[in-house]
């Protein structure tokens, strides 16, 4: 029965890798939209909105993603919503990334010089116009390297979706290891797959950072 590692196993791991990428993309897309609103709330002129979003960010950043996954997984079951594992994991990753992305982007928006806001206001632009036409184009340039850097974080953290039974790369490796028990080989391959996805992103993020810093050197 345990004939060792075959191409079938490799194929199963590759399938897991595809689901890891799908979940990462889903988490980034949904988390990006939610994170945009978190950023808006964090920089809002309305005080209670700022406070509320700060509390949200502090709670998400102060608790492990693993616990967030458990709370959502069991919590949704309690309310009576039976989500497929992909959606449960996706919602968990979305909440997680919205807090981190929102906070990263808030920093970028706030690093745009104050005078830019003031000048835009003097031109009688509305708050939306200020944001869309003046601030965001400048903030996005600063925001790209840390956002790409966070994507590495995101891909790695999809591995925690394995605990709520979503079969992505880590879960697939666990399943195979349970039958073959060749942990060095199997988790080594899984790690290599993660590395192949994450390392290009890391390099890209670093090169973006270097390009951004050219003017300052």
């Amino acid at each position, binding site marked *: 029965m345990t004939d060792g590692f075959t191409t079938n196993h490799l194929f199963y791991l590759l399938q897991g890798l595809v689901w890891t990428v799908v979940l990462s993309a889903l988490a980034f897309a949904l988390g990006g939209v939610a994170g945009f609103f978190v950023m808006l709330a964090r920089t809002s002129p309305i005080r209670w909105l700022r406070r509320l979003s700060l509390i949200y960010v*502090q*709670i998400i*950043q*102060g*608790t*492990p*993603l*693993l*616990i*967030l996954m*458990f*709370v959502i997984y*069991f*919590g949704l*079951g*309690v*309310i*009576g919503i039976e989500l497929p594992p992909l959606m449960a994991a996706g919602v968990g990753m979305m909440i997680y990334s919205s807090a981190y992305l929102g906070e990263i982007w808030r920093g970028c928006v706030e690093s745009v010089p104050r005078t830019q806001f003031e000048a835009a206001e003097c031109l009688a632009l509305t708050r939306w116009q200020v944001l869309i036409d003046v601030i965001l184009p400048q903030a996005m340039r600063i925001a790209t390297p840390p956002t790409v850097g966070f994507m*590495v974080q995101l891909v*790695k*953290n999809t*591995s*925690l979706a*394995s*605990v709520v039974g979503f079969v992505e790369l*880590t879960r697939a*490796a*666990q399943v195979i*290891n349970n039958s073959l*028990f*060749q*942990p*060095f080989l199997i*988790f*080594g391959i*899984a*790690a290599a797959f*993660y*590395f192949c996805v*994450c*390392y290009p992103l*890391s390099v890209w993020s670093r090169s973006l950072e270097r390009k951004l810093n050219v003017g300052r050197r």
Partner: protein
Amino acid sequence: MNYQFDFEALLPYWQSFLQGAITTIQMTIVAVAIGLVIGVLCAIARRSAYPWLRLVVGIYIEIVRNTPFIVQIFFIFFGLSSMGLTMPVFFASVFAMVINVGAYTAEIVRAGMEAVHPSQIEAAEALGLSRFQIYRDIILMPSIERVYPALTSQFILMMLSTSITSQISAEELTGVANNIQSYTFRSFETYIVIAAIYLVITYLLRFGFHAIALAIFPRRRRLGTPL
């Protein structure tokens, strides 16, 4: 939705929760203390004159930083036991954490070291300071001071990552919670309580790191610069 929340069912287990929280903090402190030393050594090795040493340390850092912690833990824990090397879960967990936090620390400290201006080192050499003194007083301490906020948030992320060691059945906070919810069938409440405890530990650690900073960076204290 007509779910009755029942947090009282968890009350008899408060000692287990406390024990789990203490284990989490212990693991974090041990791993961070050793990881900090390894990280600083790796950061120094990254600036070494030997290309092979730079390469080896660079590979270690990149591998750890680009693979998930949970895979690292499985690799180490199951891998070692498949070789017949069994060790207590606590040690295996801390071992994996040290390897993980060491790589991140190395990268953060290296960034701080790069920000030290070469003229400062030249000035120190001109004053006749020894190589060790230059490293300690001119390069290391100022760069750690500079990257201290990044270091502390990395350490707090590490504390949160201890929850992952429950997957190899370590008896820290999450592991304890997994047990309790299987006794009480109050999974939702258990994990909410756990989340609150993690939040408290996060703030405790932040407070602790701030106190440490006040103690070891006298210049900051005098200038009143916030960390």
